[in-house]
């Protein structure tokens, strides 16, 4: 798929979402425009942009470097790993607490994504996980979740 068509699909999807959910909002009148006017107009413009770029993208198909899901995963494995790990960190943050979740998160990032040896990843995780907790929680007095730990 060409870059133009890739972008057009995002604009179309958001535009259609906007259209669907702004139709239920009050439109008001010209002398008192309602809360639907702006989002509705923008959704229509987004859909129009999506259609425009979809047509523009015709004939600009990119060369296929690798086929199938396996090729896609291989090509984008580092960003995919980071996104997956970050999602796991977000889910674990409140149940586990910041100190534990951040140390584990940093460890897996150093070990699995940055490809450091286990002991180096452990040292880095133990330095930066609790280090960031001390800096933010204790020094800057930021409210961070405690989770299962008593502190």
């Amino acid at each position, binding site marked *: 798929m060409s*870059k133009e068509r*890739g*972008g057009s699909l*995002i*604009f179309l999807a*958001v535009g259609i979402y*906007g259209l669907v*959910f*702004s139709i239920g*909002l*009050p439109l008001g009148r*010209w*002398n*008192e*425009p*309602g*809360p639907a*006017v*702006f*989002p509705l107009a*923008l*959704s229509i*413009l*987004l859909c129009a*942009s*999506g259609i*425009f*770029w979809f047509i523009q993208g015709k004939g600009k198909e990119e060369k296929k470097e690798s086929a199938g899901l396996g090729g896609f995963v291989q090509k*984008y494995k*580092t*960003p995919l790993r*980071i*996104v997956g790990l*970050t*999602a796991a*960190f*977000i889910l674990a*943050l*409140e149940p586990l607490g*910041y100190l534990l979740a*951040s140390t584990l*998160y*940093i460890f897996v*990032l*150093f070990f699995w*994504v*940055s*490809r*450091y040896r286990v002991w180096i990843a452990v040292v*880095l995780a133990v330095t*930066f*996980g609790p280090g*960031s907790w001390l800096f*933010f929680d204790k020094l*800057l*007095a*930021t*409210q*961070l*979740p405690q989770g299962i730990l008593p502190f």
Partner: protein
Amino acid sequence: MDVLNNLLLGFQTALTFKNIYLCFIGCLWGTVVGVLPGIGPLAGIALLIPATFGMDATGAIIMLAGIYYGAMYGGSTTSILMNIPGESASVVTCIDGYQMTRKGRGGAALFIAAWGSWVGGTLSIVGLMFLAPTLANFAVKFGPPEMFSVLLIAFILLGSLGKGSFFKTLPMIFLGLLIGTIGMDPLTGTMRFTHGIKDLYDGIGFIPVAMGAFGIGEILSSTEESLIRTVYKIKLRELLPNREELRASWGPIFRGTGLGFLIGLLPGSAHVLSSFVSYTLEKRLAKRPEEFGTGRIEGVAGPETANNAASESAMIPFLGLGIPTGPAPAVMMIALLIHGIRPGPLFISEQPQVFWGLIASMYIGNVILLILNLPLVGIFVNLLRVPFRILFPIILLICLVGTYSVNSSVIELVILLVFGVLGYIFRKLEYDVAPFILALIIGPTIEIAFRQSLMRSAGSFSIFFKSPISCTLIVLSCLLFFWNIYRAVRPKKEWEKALEEGE
């Protein structure tokens, strides 16, 4: 006289130990993010926003502004010494700067880049000092129709001067404006696109969106390329330029200052555009233009001066009108909003110590940066030896904890990740993320201005043409819109192709 008195007040604010320290930290961090490819000034500012929560607004803006203009100084270092632009505005500096390094004149190129940056930056602050209050006084008289037309032309200019084509920027602006409508409608109290999620009632948070789209998005792009960066050995020979180089650089420095100052007032990637325009101008004015690209000092002096001048003058519409013209001022605006201060026409009169403290700190910051970037340049170059595979997990963690600390909300972390992925996808698809963020921030203002105008006129669109300011700006917006259509269909000029490639 009024300006001098106010500047004195500014120096009284800026010359406290705490504010000098914050200015130094901002400049130091700015130089670091400028030197390190993969972390731009935006991510640099966004990362330090959580650290400003315990500060007053003056200290916060002094530090964040230091990061912004500090990154412009630092960006030239890797361009000159390693042929890697540390910051997008320094792309053009690679052309002649790196060739000078290969000829053994890298030290002189660094000196001229820092000197030009200082001259451009300092003269631009003088302009900022006089122009911003004048603009603010003028804008105080603005009603909703004028505000709407100013924002309309700002968006059209953003589309015209941003990265990529006008028609590629427009949907990004629409997207930002649409996402800006999420939350409670300020005029009627109706909930829009909240789906019962309480965290969205006040609207979508700027911090998770900006940090996601710029910080996480930038990291995902950088890690995809390579986690292990090759660091070349650098030999810094003579730092002082010779007489011929000094003589040749004066003209480009002063032309770059004027050019950068004017371009900085326009919305879009002004600092990138200013460096390209300055390079093209110097090449046109040169007696032997064919020597450009082989290591001419004018090719370093002009663009480096212009991008610094542009970054300082970009603060004029941001502080005077409350319209951030670029992504970095937009992120600074978010920081000020968090501190309960809204930049705009009333900002300078209501918060003189913040505005004049910032102005004074910029003079101090430029001197700090000159010191940091000349004798200490070797230390910053050594920073490149820290592997990116160590840096990125730490940056990710700071982004996450920074976002969480604003409202202690996990939903905001989800927003951060979603917009991080979106930012990354848009980078891959070659769409500029900056207009999206700007539209998100300015969106609610333009919507209110539009609706209030129609309410005042009982639904008549003639209100937009009754005031001379509004009428002129709307006519100009229409002309600009049609000019962009013409520009899209006509064949591209050589410098336009070069600018697109550089971006």
